């Protein structure tokens, strides 16, 4: 039992003290059993107060500490570190949340808020009275990182990790690297092409002996946890030998009778079952798409490099951390959405980029020369009725940049931008300005009143109530309608399900804290980067990839990790394996082992997060949580019930 508890009650500069009478809270608990010292403070987390706490612990020989302030999500670790600096075992610290759970929740009832704060602090004191010193669980960390996705973010992260000194496995699901950027020509800001950027990054990746690249590869199983993940990777063969002769290869492609839509060109062209991504794809080796190949054998007859005997392989990779760079999908409009799929000259922005790529002196689509282009913005983003409430961030700038390119590349182009308020933030403003100077026409409506597309005769009309001309109804005859589609999370996100990565309201991967820990996830050891986390442009993706590389490297660099000891424990005597705990565990932390002639549950302490989901389902009460035992909880409940 603790005898010298120090209690600190935080004003949070008004965040708490505007609604909670912190002095009253202090007075109500200062004579509680074991409380030696009770203070209020303006900002408990400020450096000056932290110093004072250290001095108090040292001078007054405090044996435990409670801080009543904000959510433990924000500052549990801060104050544990304070106690540790003062020479106290950090598990003798208990955090009471009187901000999110009290002052912010009950701003309409100051008296009630104060009473609730008192009970919460009393409960924390009750818990700290029983606190025991605990030692962290030490695990060895493998100095290797798996980077999932070899788009620009993944390749950049892989290079950085290798340079910093880690072994890197770069795992790409497609047969070719480069992700979405490979599909783009001129890039914003630098005028470099997507292909050129990919070439630079790929060359660097291949230069590093510490990076191993797998294409056609997918993680299918994950065992282990931070420091020691074991990933099972399925590698699909491309059915090509390395030394292929290019003219033979072309013959093989020519004789292939299968023709399917080419996803690289967003289905505006077709390809064979043997295919390249584009002439300078990486790796520079075609692949056979076995989903569509009919195994007719025609290609084998003309090309010696084809090898149907190659088998799917499974590899086990040991890594200390996993960095996700799985990117995004372009939004696919629904059939009929702004005429998509119904009117033949309605295309998406990614398709438009590919059309521009293939047209040299004249912009031609489906045999017709294009002069009037109508761009409809925010398709699939900022939806009023749909699920995507978010702004896709990159599309305004990317589309205006493309519209300028088109105007400069071809003659007599007229651009009409049907927008909802252009968001060319930051330096991208100069393109908005340039396009206006080039004579592009901007027409705007609000979310609830989008433009309408109509086919009349053989002409396509786009109509809008334009708020820039006092809601006049304006109509444009468009040769081509470009739907400026946004970014959506990957359709196939099996890796996220495998690793149990949480998603935000927008369904992109979610970080722990946007500002404090922007690239880490609640799954220890797994970092996220690029557009997998939410829409980003290339530079922003690179920044997050590099930041994630730093965090992943920090984990594996030291060779050893200290993990939280507050995990579930099994009383092996009463346990008689029934498997209910295993079913309830969201982190797959339970194993069935044989012990003294019977089966019992075992907790993998490195995987267990101490969430407590297993406790209530155990029929024989064989489970308890270290650091939050049944006894602790009962004493807290007693303290929470006000004595009348």
């Amino acid at each position, binding site marked *: 039992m603790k005898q010298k508890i120090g209690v600190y009650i935080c004003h*949070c*500069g*008004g*965040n708490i003290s505007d609604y909670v009478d912190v002095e009253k809270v202090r007075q109500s608990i200062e004579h509680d059993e074991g409380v030696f010292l009770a203070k209020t403070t303006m*900002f408990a*987390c*400020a*450096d*000056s107060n*932290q110093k004072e706490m250290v001095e108090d612990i040292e001078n007054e020989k405090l044996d435990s500490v409670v801080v009543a302030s*904000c959510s433990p999500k*924000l*500052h549990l670790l*801060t104050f544990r*570190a304070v106690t540790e*600096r003062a020479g106290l075992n950090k598990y003798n610290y208990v955090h009471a949340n009187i901000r999110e759970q009290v002052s912010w929740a009950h701003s309409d009832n100051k008296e009630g808020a104060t009473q609730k704060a008192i009970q919460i602090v009393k409960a924390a004191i009750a818990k700290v009275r029983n606190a025991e010193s605990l030692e962290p669980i030490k695990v060895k960390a493998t100095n290797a990182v798996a980077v999932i996705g070899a788009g*620009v973010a993944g390749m950049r992260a892989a290079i*950085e990790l290798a*340079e910093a000194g880690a072994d890197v496995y770069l795992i790409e699901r497609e047969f070719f690297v480069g992700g979405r950027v490979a599909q783009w020509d001129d890039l914003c*800001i*630098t005028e470099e092409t997507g292909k050129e*950027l990919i070439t630079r990054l790929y060359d660097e990746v291949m230069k590093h002996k510490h990076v191993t690249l797998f294409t056609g590869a997918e993680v299918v199983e994950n065992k282990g946890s931070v420091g020691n993940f074991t990933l099972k990777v399925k590698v699909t063969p491309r059915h090509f030998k390395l030394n292929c002769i290019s003219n033979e290869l072309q013959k093989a492609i020519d004789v292939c009778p299968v023709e399917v839509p080419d996803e690289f060109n967003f289905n505006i062209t077709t390809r064979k079952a043997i295919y390249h991504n584009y002439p300078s794809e990486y790796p520079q080796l075609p692949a056979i798409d076995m989903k569509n190949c009919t195994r007719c054998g025609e290609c084998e007859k003309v090309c010696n490099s084809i090898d149907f005997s190659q088998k799917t392989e499974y590899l086990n990779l040991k890594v200390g951390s996993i960095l996700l760079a799985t990117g995004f999908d372009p939004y696919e409009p629904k059939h009929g959405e702004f005429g998509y799929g119904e009117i033949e000259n309605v295309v998406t922005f990614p398709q438009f980029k590919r059309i521009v790529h293939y047209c040299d002196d004249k912009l031609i689509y489906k045999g017709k020369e294009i002069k009037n282009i109508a761009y409809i913005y925010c398709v699939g983003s900022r939806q009023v009725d749909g699920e995507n*409430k*978010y*702004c896709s*961030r990159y599309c305004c700038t990317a589309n205006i940049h493309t519209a300028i390119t088109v105007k400069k590349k071809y003659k007599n182009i007229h651009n009409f931008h049907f927008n909802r*308020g*252009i*968001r*060319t*933030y*930051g*330096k991208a*403003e*100069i393109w908005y300005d340039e396009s206006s100077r080039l004579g592009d026409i901007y027409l705007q409506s609000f979310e609830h009143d989008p433009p309408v597309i109509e086919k009349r005769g053989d002409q396509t009309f786009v109509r809008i109530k334009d*708020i*820039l001309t*006092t809601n006049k109804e304006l109509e444009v005859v468009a040769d081509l309608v470009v739907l400026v589609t946004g970014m959506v999370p990957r359709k196939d996100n099996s890796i996220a399900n495998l690793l149990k990565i949480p998603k*935000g*309201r*927008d369904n*992109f991967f979610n970080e722990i804290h*946007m*500002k*404090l820990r*922007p*690239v880490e996830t609640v799954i220890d050891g797994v970092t996220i980067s690029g557009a997998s986390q*939410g*829409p980003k442009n*290339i*530079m*922003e993706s690179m*920044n*997050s990839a*590099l*930041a*994630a590389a*730093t*965090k992943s490297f*920090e984990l594996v660099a030291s060779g050893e990790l200290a993990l939280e000891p507050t995990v579930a424990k099994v009383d092996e005597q009463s346990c008689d394996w029934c498997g209910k705990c295993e079913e309830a565990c969201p982190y797959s932390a339970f194993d069935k082992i044989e012990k003294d002639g019977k089966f019992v549950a075992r907790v993998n302490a490195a995987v267990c997060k101490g969430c407590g989901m297993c406790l209530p389902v155990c029929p024989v009460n064989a489970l308890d949580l270290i650091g939050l035992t049944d006894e602790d909880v009962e004493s807290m409940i007693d303290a929470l019930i006000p004595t009348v």
Partner: protein
Amino acid sequence: MSEQMKSLEFDVLVIGGGIAGGEAALNLANLNYKVLLVEKELSIGGKMIMLSKVFPTLDCAACITTPKISEIARHPNITIFTGAETRKITKIEEHHFEAIVLQKPRYVNVTDCTGCQLCEQACPVSVSDQYQYGLVGRKAVYIPFSIASPRAAAIDIENCTLCGACERVCPTQCIDFTQTEEEFLVTIKSIVVATGFDLFDPLKIPRYGYGTFKNVITSMQMERQLAPTRPYNTILRPGDGKMPDNIAYVLCTGSRDKSLGNPICSQICCMYSVKQAQLLMGALPMADITIYYLHIRAFGKGFNEFYAQAQDMGVEFVKGKVGKITEKENGNLILRYEDIEQGKVQEAEHDMVVLSVGVLPNQGISDAFENKKLELDPFNFINQADILASPAKTSIDGVFVAGTASGPMDIPDSILSGGAASAETTSYLRRALL
């Protein structure tokens, strides 16, 4: 260089102790590199530590910044100079730079100062408080602000009368008028420039009346009024101390305006204005808030949802540029603006106007580089030499840029950029070993 100059050696010099520089310093220090952090202000924490709550999550800025700052200040691998300037940076060769760091005298011995504030009470001189953006006064001896790090007094020698009152009351005798400027010769292997941004000075738009009309304030002044360490403990209009009930925001003040030499968008003003509007509705439930805007740039994660939330809360958004502000006798203000939706010029009366001032480059650091040129972009931000593949790279190998020194960005982006700068610095330092 003088013979007596003290020499110091570190792996990395981080110039600027705001949130981006701090993040870079912390990452590098965690990887066991020795870091020198040089900050020109009297406290680290940059602009973020001065803010109220931050969008789009409405986290209290102080609650996020102070523990980070505390971690930086305590880190065994980080040495901090506050009130210091970096000069004469020379690149000797790869992985070998020299710089002069000028420590300006604080006239207070920081290690002995307990922050008791007795000196502040004794000091007879009152001047405008720059850390409260001129909303209130401070003494000539002062603790910069309550959550400053270090939380120690400093003497503003320009305004000090040398009366000695502070010296007499100081219980630890930490006041020391004999301090002089001290120069250090610092040898480092790499540099991170994280010098942040300046705010646009609205005196440059006389037609908005800032500086003349007392109830026209900047967004940073409103930020201070909303912050937990706020000077008035409520929202007041400076002219007469009345609680405002009809507040206007003028967006793009100093941004997207070629006539002022700043054609670009400042990227943060829309969102901080939307945020302040939400906070004001909490602080002054009866007040009307109107935001005059051109386009709302709510582009980041959760931003558009946050903007929609403000609309749902009843914040009025008027699409149009404010041309001119005039003052009535009672201190209220008349805004003359182009109402784009109505297609005509309108006038509206408000009792307080907040100018949402933009982000400008913090110039000067490029002049500190002696034998190599730290190149700037057309807007005078630090040029990102390989912006798409290596966003932290500058024109000088071994010198990296973090945060708003390279252009406007919000807090999440600044922190990511700090992370990127530390990553690139790490691999640059590793190459020294090969």
